[in-house]
């Protein structure tokens, strides 16, 4: 009965209000296409404004021509018929944001997809927003540890950086991104995994994996699966960005994974072709560059004066046959601050993560690398570069001089040590200890197939005897001479 009383009270209040005279912008649906409707009227509607159809279905204006308005439908577009009335709402698309999002799976409109309670929120963040300007930014200096040896040592990523993960299908792109999320445990980084046009089964597996590793306590999943309309797939990364901005504005560091932007470009292409926008190369519209640049530009590191906080973006691009010079890959490569290039051949020959070190770069992350890692990584890079130069000669091993043989041996061992099992991120100190052993020649005499065993042994010993050492390196992020000597002792104990 209480509920009914409340209902009646609200009704009474509603009815007591004298009819307010307010003008509305209205229009009529003239065409309904796949996920896109064309409307007549709505003379004073703005780009990006929301329009309401009957049954509370919303639309989002993305096309304004001389006498027509094009809008994408957020939700079920089959209920809309030609001749239906539409009303402009006078505000742009925003998503509800709050702390309650953490641990949840939401769609492109911020509505829960995981069957749990509605997300309570008082704040709305606009889905499309101009990125922070030059004044508010700060250079990238703080590292974002991915927990993957080859990335943290050779292609370091900093907080606020945009690092592209690029490769063919099945080369472990998502695995790298998810490992990076798993490694943020206890790092005070909010992680957002944005799935665009993925299979629902794959997303479910990732959600399960995050939960199993306790990563759901600091992560949000935004899902626009392949079954969703292209409009929802188009909006998903911007929604993820808006959610990220909410946490960034509170001074927190955020990591967003866009998986993947190839499918996002496809969704945008489909919409643009239906709207009859002129098609360019590969039938993408002219603004396909701006599509991704305005999204990735929203990744930034805000100056402390303006509240601090950062958004690190890990966009993923899928290539065909390793072709990095296709249209969308080159675009996104030029937008981002570096790329991690994955290759099928390396993957099949057992080098996992299958990172092609030669093609991968990090343009700003070097400044963000910790001193401890810098100390070991410098030598490692040199070893690998020399190995790559000489690798072609490795078949004629008997005819080579001692010096060359040494380089080849070291290179093979370093390549071996950079392999890592999936979903097993390592802490900074663990990484440093293994890489230190490799670059100081403690692996040179071991056969290649025993290196993995050595690694597990070393990590076990460190966990048993070197707990203090690990804690010290993880805390200070510096490795001095004494630390080196301590580590040397432990390594000698094993071998």
């Amino acid at each position, binding site marked *: 009965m209480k509920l009914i009383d409340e209902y009646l009270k609200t009704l009474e209040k509603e009815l007591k209000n004298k009819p307010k005279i307010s003008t509305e912008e209205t229009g009529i649906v003239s065409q309904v296409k796949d996920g896109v409707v064309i409307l007549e009227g*709505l003379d004073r509607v703005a780009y990006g404004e929301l329009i309401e159809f009957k049954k509370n279905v919303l639309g989002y204006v993305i096309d304004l021509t001389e006498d027509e308005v094009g809008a994408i439908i957020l939700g079920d577009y089959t209920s809309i018929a030609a001749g239906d009335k539409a009303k402009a709402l006078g505000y742009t698309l925003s998503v509800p944001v709050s702390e309650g999002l953490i641990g949840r799976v939401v769609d492109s409109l911020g509505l829960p997809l995981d069957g749990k309670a509605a997300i309570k929120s008082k704040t709305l963040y606009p889905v499309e927003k101009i990125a922070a300007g030059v004044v508010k930014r700060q250079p990238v200096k703080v590292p974002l540890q991915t927990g993957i040896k080859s990335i943290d040592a050779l292609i370091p990523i900093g907080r606020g950086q945009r690092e592209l993960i690029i490769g063919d299908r099945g080369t472990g792109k998502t695995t790298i991104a998810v490992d990076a999320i798993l490694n943020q445990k206890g790092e005070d980084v909010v992680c957002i995994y944005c799935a665009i046009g993925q299979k629902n089964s794959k997303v479910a597996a990732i959600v399960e994996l995050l939960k199993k590793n306790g990563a759901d306590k600091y992560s949000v999943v935004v899902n626009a699966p392949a079954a969703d309309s292209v409009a929802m797939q188009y909006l998903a990364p911007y929604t993820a960005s808006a959610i990220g901005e909410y946490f960034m504005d509170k001074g927190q560091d955020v990591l967003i994974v866009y998986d993947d932007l190839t499918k996002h470009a496809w969704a945008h292409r489909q919409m643009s072709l239906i709207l009859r926008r002129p098609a360019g190369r590969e039938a993408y519209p002219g603004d396909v560059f701006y599509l991704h640049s305005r999204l990735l530009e929203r990744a930034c590191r805000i100056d402390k004066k303006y509240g601090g906080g950062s958004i690190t973006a890990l966009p993923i691009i899928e290539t065909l046959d390793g072709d990095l010079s296709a249209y969308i890959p080159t675009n996104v490569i030029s937008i981002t601050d570096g790329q991690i290039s994955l290759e099928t051949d390396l993957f099949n020959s057992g080098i996992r993560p299958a990172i092609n070190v030669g093609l991968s770069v990090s343009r700003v992350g070097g400044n963000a690398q910790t001193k401890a890692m810098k100390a070991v990584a410098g030598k490692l890079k040199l070893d690998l570069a020399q190995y790559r130069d000489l690798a072609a000669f490795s078949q004629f091993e008997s005819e080579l001089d001692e010096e060359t043989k040494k380089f080849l041996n070291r290179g093979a061992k370093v390549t071996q040590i950079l392999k890592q099992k999936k979903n097993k991120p390592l802490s900074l100190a663990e990484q440093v200890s293994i890489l230190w052993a490799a670059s100081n020649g403690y692996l040179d005499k071991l056969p290649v197939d025993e290196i993995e065993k050595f690694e597990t042994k070393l990590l076990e010993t460190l966990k048993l005897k070197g707990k203090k050492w690990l804690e010290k390196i993880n805390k200070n992020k510096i490795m001095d001479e004494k630390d080196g000597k301590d580590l040397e002792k432990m390594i000698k104990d094993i071998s």
Partner: protein
Amino acid sequence: MKINPKLKKDLKSFLLDNIHKEQNQVQVFSADVLGVDEKKVLGKKFSDLNWSQAHYQIDRSIIAGIVIKVGSKTIDLSLMGSLSKLSNTLYEID
């Protein structure tokens, strides 16, 4: 078929003119025929609209009250409009 560009241009401007005229025309939908007094009250209340060319129509579906349309602008003062607003409010309370 080739069309003389000048003809095309003239036709376009003629049509645009027509559309413009139509757009500024006031259309009034009411549930029943409006009396002279009621029209006077309307003219006073919305004095910024051009009432000389006003077009009156009857639309039973709005139940009661009036709806005024000028171009794509709509002023909804009908019972049907308030009822649908109410149903929206109820939907949101739930």
